[in-house]
């Protein structure tokens, strides 16, 4: 993975000193709360319902074991012994003291981490495929380009006060695990007819109160133009994006207002002025960064070892875990393991300091010391030998990280909701816990098959409900929590926005409604049809009829 050189380290160290000075000015009363607000918001420090929350950047979701141990330490030393992994591959600490934030940042800088641009109307953490580098269908490792974009966007002097926040995601594979179509900019690596790798550029995707699938504005962008093209998009947005209404300020609204064709033309026109200039990405820099993502020293295997096959036959529970939580690796004899942060009845995405320390040890022992954070709020060990899967599984079981539910109804995405968040209208976590408990029967989960349930506590959609196969949105009606349900959303390469089924459900009715939806699906599915495919075939009607039959 990427390592800081002297330039990267100097920047982060100076940033810590700068922020320490800002906090000191606040604590000394030189800055009012209002004056301090924009400063802390440049650094991921939010004031929530009960305390400050600090969001730490995990660029493209990749962590070393050393970094994860530091995150565990911060949870233990400065928080209540845990952290929350987010849908943007970051980690949040919910119980932070203002006086200690600069010390936390200094500790993070020791392990090449920071909280720069994890909030504010700027270019946020760059996210990427959590199977980067190990997926068989990958064209190039998207983290190379994510790191290049991370550096270009860090303290960009022109784009630090955009109309609104700006999110960029990169996938190196045709199969999109990074949800690039619901980002402000989505980059998909593709090959042109000459076989050269480059990017398809998508703009204007997003969720929030106006969910939109991104529009493709350039079918092929050569790699060396990556930064000049991004700069052209951002410059057009910075000048023309709406600033009169917070809810209409994202780039998707601008793209919609002027039309994708006109927007494309504006970007291309701006780009003509700045292409082939000082923003040209030198091949030597691409190669410098590529070297950090070189494959680890894999052993050579011809295929799966015999003992692994035997273990699969002998141990039903192990086989079930492999079926859901282990994915195919591009190298023979290796596997990709997802550690579920969704124990039945638990809080999605939370990990204790003990768990984080233990995962760091497991990564050192079994996966070249590297960990990935997924936007679905799980962790990944990406390079595990099949021969040691059984041993690893037993250890994960002991840590409560082996819930065999990845990709199933128990693998719920949920935002922090009204339990923590000042913006929320309703609680998300208890709903996730109830659904998770209700569908705790693992045999039934497997029978239901692939199902992505996503829950947001408000219209800002941090829980990605618009792109859930089943999406649940908390709304406030006269001081009471209600939940609106959408069906048929998806965040992959065939992305779609879910359809609202009808009037919202009360807190006590949500689990029953999900149950009804799933029963309806089980009754009408054909063969091995997934929920999403069945929904796309039959549409909203049969679900709606069942859901509102009693009324």
């Amino acid at each position, binding site marked *: 993975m990427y390592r800081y050189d002297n330039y990267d380290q100097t*920047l982060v160290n100076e940033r810590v000193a700068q922020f320490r000075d800002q906090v000191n000015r606040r604590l000394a009363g030189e800055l009012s709360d209002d*004056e301090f607000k924009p400063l802390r918001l440049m650094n991921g420090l939010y004031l929530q319902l009960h305390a400050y929350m600090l969001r730490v950047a995990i660029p493209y979701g990749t962590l070393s074991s050393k970094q994860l141990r530091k995150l565990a330490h911060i949870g233990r030393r400065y928080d209540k012994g845990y952290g929350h992994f987010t849908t943007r591959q970051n980690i949040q600490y919910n119980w932070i003291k203002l006086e200690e934030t600069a010390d936390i940042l200094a500790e993070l800088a020791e392990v090449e981490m920071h909280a720069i641009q994890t909030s504010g109307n700027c270019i946020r953490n760059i996210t990427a495929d959590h199977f980067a580098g190990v997926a068989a269908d990958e064209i190039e490792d998207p983290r190379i380009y994510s790191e290049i974009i991370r550096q270009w966007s860090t303290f960009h*002097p022109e*784009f630090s006060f*955009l109309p609104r926040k700006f999110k960029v995601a990169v996938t190196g594979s045709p199969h999109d695990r990074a949800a690039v179509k619901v980002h402000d900019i989505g980059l998909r690596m593709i090959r042109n007819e000459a076989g050269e790798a480059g990017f398809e550029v998508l703009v204007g995707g997003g969720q929030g109160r106006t969910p939109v699938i991104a529009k493709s504005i350039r079918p092929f962008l050569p790699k060396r133009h990556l930064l000049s093209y991004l700069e052209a998009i951002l410059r057009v947005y910075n000048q023309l994006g709406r600033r009169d209404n917070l809810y209409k300020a994202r780039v998707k609204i601008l793209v919609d207002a002027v039309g994708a064709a006109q927007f494309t033309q504006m970007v291309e026109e701006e780009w003509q002025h700045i292409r082939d200039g000082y923003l040209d990405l030198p091949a*030597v820099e691409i*190669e410098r960064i590529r070297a950090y993502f070189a494959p680890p020293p894999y052993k050579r295997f011809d295929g799966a070892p015999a003992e692994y096959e035997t273990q699969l036959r002998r141990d039903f529970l192990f086989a079930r875990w492999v079926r859901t939580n282990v994915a195919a690796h591009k190298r023979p004899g290796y596997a990709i393991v997802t550690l579920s942060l969704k124990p039945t009845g638990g809080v999605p995405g939370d990990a204790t300091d003990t768990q984080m320390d233990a995962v760091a040890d497991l990564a050192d022992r079994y996966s070249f010391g590297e960990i990935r954070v997924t936007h679905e709020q799980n962790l990944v060990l990406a390079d595990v030998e099949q021969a040691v899967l059984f041993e690893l599984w037993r250890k994960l079981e002991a840590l409560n990280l082996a819930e065999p539910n990845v990709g199933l109804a128990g693998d719920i995405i949920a935002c922090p909701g009204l339990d923590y968040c000042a913006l929320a209208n309703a609680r998300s976590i208890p709903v996730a816990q109830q659904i998770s408990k209700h569908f705790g029967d693992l045999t039934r989960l497997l029978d239901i098959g692939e199902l992505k349930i996503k829950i947001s506590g408000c219209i800002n959609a941090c829980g990605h409900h618009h792109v859930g196969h089943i999406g649940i949105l908390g709304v406030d009606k006269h001081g009471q929590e209600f939940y609106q349900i959408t069906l048929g959303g998806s965040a992959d390469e065939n992305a779609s926005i879910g359809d609202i089924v009808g009037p919202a459900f009360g807190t006590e009715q949500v689990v029953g409604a999900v149950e009804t939806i799933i029963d309806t699906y089980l009754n009408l599915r054909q063969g091995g049809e997934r929920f999403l495919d069945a929904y796309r075939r039959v549409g909203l009607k049969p679900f709606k009829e069942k859901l509102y039959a009693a009324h």
Partner: protein
Amino acid sequence: MPLIKANGLVDDLWTHVKDEEQLPPDGAVIVTLARWQANRDQLLARPTPLGVRLRSDQAPSAIAGDIERFDVIALEFPKFTDGRAYSSARLLRERHGFRGELRAVGSVLRDQLAFMRRCGFDSFQIPDSADAAAWAGSLRGISVVYQPATDARTTAIAARHKPAPRREVEDDEEPAPKVVAAAVEVSYEPSQVCAGYWAY
């Protein structure tokens, strides 16, 4: 309101003239875009220096053909969150070739000065209560920059790939074997960036 430049507090010799105000008979004035467009000939006939002030929703292209007429261009930040003037500043410097004084006015925060300077601003109107020396100190910002901007500072990429300085070979020294770089195409000329792309 006090005005600072890189070296600290400076005297502000300019008068901002609002649209509803009478133009003073002489002295350096900064007028609005509207007045410039309405009274162009009258303004050009004055013997004293002239400046123009753009709101954040007024694009630099509105004065692109007249850049050399102005000694000062003032760009407004109506709120610190309105970042349009950063783009305007870069366009005025880099595309329209403005070499005069580029002044940040309005809601200017101490912790934004370094960004403004990188985008080509060189004077800053600061609040009356501000400690001018401390604010001028904030102009320096962080010593490493990742992206090229108007200030033409050497970026981390350029510094990383700067060719090593040449060394004279002593007579009795074996010349070092020529290192053939890996088969990568160098499509970048760091000196372009270092040499002050837009010297002004």
